[in-house]
């Protein structure tokens, strides 16, 4: 009788165990030429048009190429386009790289560029990048390796904006359709996909036909591990080579265990948004006062180990086009803040709603709480409302976010002042700000194709933004990574990606 029980239990256990698919097991017990990367979240599909978040660029850069890339100093560099020139204020011509093949053997040519851009602009494909290319009127194929892009009005940032147009294979895309393409994607990148399971892992193998330098690792395994402690535990146990987005509290301990910890600036500026059409934020003195009342350096030191880079009274850092070296950060000066508030008619401060997100961005709740605590010293009282991540997004996109909110606004991959400022135009769908001078200088820089003149306008725009202060300038976000000592050639770029052909495992 008892033996029967044991047998039954044993059988139950075996049945339940054998039901699991064990296939990825071999991949996790990997040879040295497999780079194993632990990341907090994989994209929901591998179509690079599904999500505009910078955190997915590390995946896109393995599989895909763009015509133009932007280097860490904000300069445009040739990729699949070898050269480009401006024929008229609304016509660009791109010369394409020859001899480039897609993973499935298709040739890369002008048709691929045309098909990719029309896929992005087709409402049916719901591309997250469509909004960036609305100025494109036409893509003309001059010959198989020359394309002209015609815009409806001058679009000085076109070349750099192409850094988000990942080139797709026209024939395969048409055959597979968007849904299947996202699961079995094909690009021209240095790696091709071997296996993909949403929310679990994606495995890539080096593509022998890649046009550029050959990758130094045979394959890359990206595993989604939501918990930061789970990613670092995997690294410490030798199961992982790179742990992405480690929490700053772990930095000391990881260093003490002889692991490399790298922190590098990413292309996102953390700003406290002040709705300039809401009283009392309609008064620039009040907005400047809030800048004087905020100690971004203290927040950086207390919450981010001092790893991030405080902004200098402008929306971008020194590696972006449009950074104005003449502008300096608002110093932390509560006395000056109180004085400005008095001048504006608020000697006893005021109460205001701060709608923050909770868990959408790294330390968002703590940052909001600290800002509010600092403002309390100048008698500005926050009614801090912390919203669940998607509710916050819903408020943002429908333009009903509270008078004060905070977010890291993307500046990458273009690394250009135009990118974050787009969110603060009076015509913007989010109704974040309404300041005529900002609209005006923004339009000026959009209207010129002369880079020197454009830079002048961007500097003017930065000055106006400093004076008008539609935001409180906090800091440029950082990415923090922990690496096993055998990983070499890992330089993390402002879009969180690493150079897939330079990275190696030391052998």
């Amino acid at each position: 009788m008892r033996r029967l029980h044991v047998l039954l239990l044993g059988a139950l256990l075996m049945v339940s165990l054998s039901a699991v698919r064990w296939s990825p097991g071999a991949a996790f017990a990997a040879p040295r030429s497999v780079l194993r990367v632990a990341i907090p979240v994989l994209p929901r599909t591998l179509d690079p048009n599904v999500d505009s978040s910078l955190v997915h660029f590390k995946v896109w850069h393995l599989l895909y190429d763009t015509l133009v890339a932007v280097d860490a100093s904000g300069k445009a560099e040739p990729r699949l386009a070898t050269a480009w020139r401006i024929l008229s204020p609304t016509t660009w011509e791109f010369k394409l790289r020859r001899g480039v093949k897609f993973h499935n053997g298709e040739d890369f040519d002008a048709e691929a560029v045309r098909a990719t851009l029309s896929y992005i602009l087709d409402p049916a494909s719901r591309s997250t990048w469509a909004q960036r290319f609305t100025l494109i009127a036409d893509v003309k194929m001059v010959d198989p390796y020359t394309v002209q892009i015609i815009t409806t009005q001058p679009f000085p940032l076109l070349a750099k904006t192409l850094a988000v147009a990942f080139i797709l294979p026209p024939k395969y895309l048409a055959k597979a359709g968007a849904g299947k393409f996202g699961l079995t994607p094909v690009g021209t990148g240095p790696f091709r996909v071997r296996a993909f399971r949403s929310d679990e892992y994606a495995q890539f193998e080096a593509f022998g036909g890649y046009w550029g330098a050959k990758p130094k690792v045979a394959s890359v395994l990206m595993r989604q591990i939501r918990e930061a402690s789970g990613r670092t535990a995997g690294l410490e146990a030798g199961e992982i080579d790179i742990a992405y987005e480690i929490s700053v509290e772990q930095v000391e301990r990881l260093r003490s265990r002889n692991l490399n910890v790298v922190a590098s600036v990413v292309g996102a500026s953390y700003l406290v948004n002040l709705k300039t059409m809401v009283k009392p934020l309609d008064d620039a003195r009040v907005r400047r006062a809030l800048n004087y009342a905020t100690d971004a350096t203290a927040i950086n030191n207390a919450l981010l180990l001092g790893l991030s880079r405080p902004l200098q009274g402008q929306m971008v850092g020194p590696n972006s086009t449009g950074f104005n070296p003449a502008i300096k950060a608002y110093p932390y000066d509560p006395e000056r803040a109180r004085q400005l508030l008095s001048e504006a008619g608020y000697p006893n401060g005021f109460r205001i709603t701060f709608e923050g997100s909770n868990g959408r961005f790294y330390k968002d709740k703590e940052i909001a709480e600290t800002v509010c605590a600092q403002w309390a010293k100048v008698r500005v009282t926050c009614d801090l409302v912390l919203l669940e991540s998607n509710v916050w997004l819903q408020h943002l996109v429908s333009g009903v976010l509270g008078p004060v909110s905070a977010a890291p606004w993307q500046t990458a991959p273009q690394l250009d002042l135009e990118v974050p400022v787009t969110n603060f135009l009076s015509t913007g769908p989010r109704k974040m700000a309404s300041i005529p001078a900002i609209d005006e200088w923004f339009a000026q820089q959009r209207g010129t194709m002369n880079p020197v003149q454009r830079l002048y306008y961007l500097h003017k725009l930065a000055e106006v933004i400093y004076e008008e202060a539609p935001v409180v300038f906090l800091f440029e976000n950082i990415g923090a990574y922990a690496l096993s000592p055998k990983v070499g050639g890992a330089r993390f770029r402002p879009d969180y990606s690493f150079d897939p052909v330079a990275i190696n495992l030391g052998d």
Partner: protein
Amino acid sequence: MLFRIVLGRTLAVILVMVGAATIVFAVLRLSGDPVLLYAAPDTPLATLERIRQELGFDAPMYIQYLRYLGSLARGDLGYSLRYEQPVVRLLLERLPATLALAGAAFVIALILGVSAGLISAVRRGSVYDQISVAGALLGQAVPPFWLGLMLILVFGVYLRVLPTSGSGGIRHLVLPAFTLGAFFTARIARLTRTAFLEVLGEDYLRTARAKGLPERRVLIRHAAPNAAIPIVTVLAVTLSQLVGGAIVTETVFAWPGMGRLMVQGVLARDYPLVQGAVLLIAALVAVISFATDLLYAAVDPRAR
């Protein structure tokens, strides 16, 4: 007789499924807008409105509900918005991992819980009993995310005998199964102890002992069948909770089960996915309680 029980229970299962489908439909629509999944920060409202129409979320609620019931009746759980794959495929991909974790945790809880509780009851007041009761309290009090992290640190990072996360073999199952099983082990141990203590004081056991039966026989033949009824009930409830997905354990160990999938679905307002997952879990729970009812009939003559 048996036919009537089975028929009655089958009707109840169908009723439960329709109820679950209706509740999840209503509750999800209170939770937020699924179109946000497609919203980059610069997406114009008009674009979102167009996507809402394409997905059919602009139709009146009752139309959406009727459409939904219609497709359910055809066995169609729909297409996940987030993963852009059929919901059935996503669920079936994750079901084995969920069942393996639930099964292993259940077996651990059953073996450890029942034996600890039984020994505790028989050796009431002994050192063993005290350790076991304290252990059971601790097991129920320790939060699974903490226990999981501690197990990862000890067995994965320091001793390096087991993998820290992921799926891939029986070794990957050990830590999550123990983490998940700990809570239920403790609950079952406490309940078994109480159930046996109650029965052990009964007159018929004294009679059995007075007849000169060996103690082991007294326990197995006379005490166990009577103590088993509450234990079977709790085991059934435990199993139902386990197949519902162990969200915390799955997250800590990056275990690819349904719990995590469902949380992703909820966060993304992936209506079809969450609806499908809830229905599948409701079906599993209904089947388990169906089986429990049959088991009752076996252990308790009064239930027949």
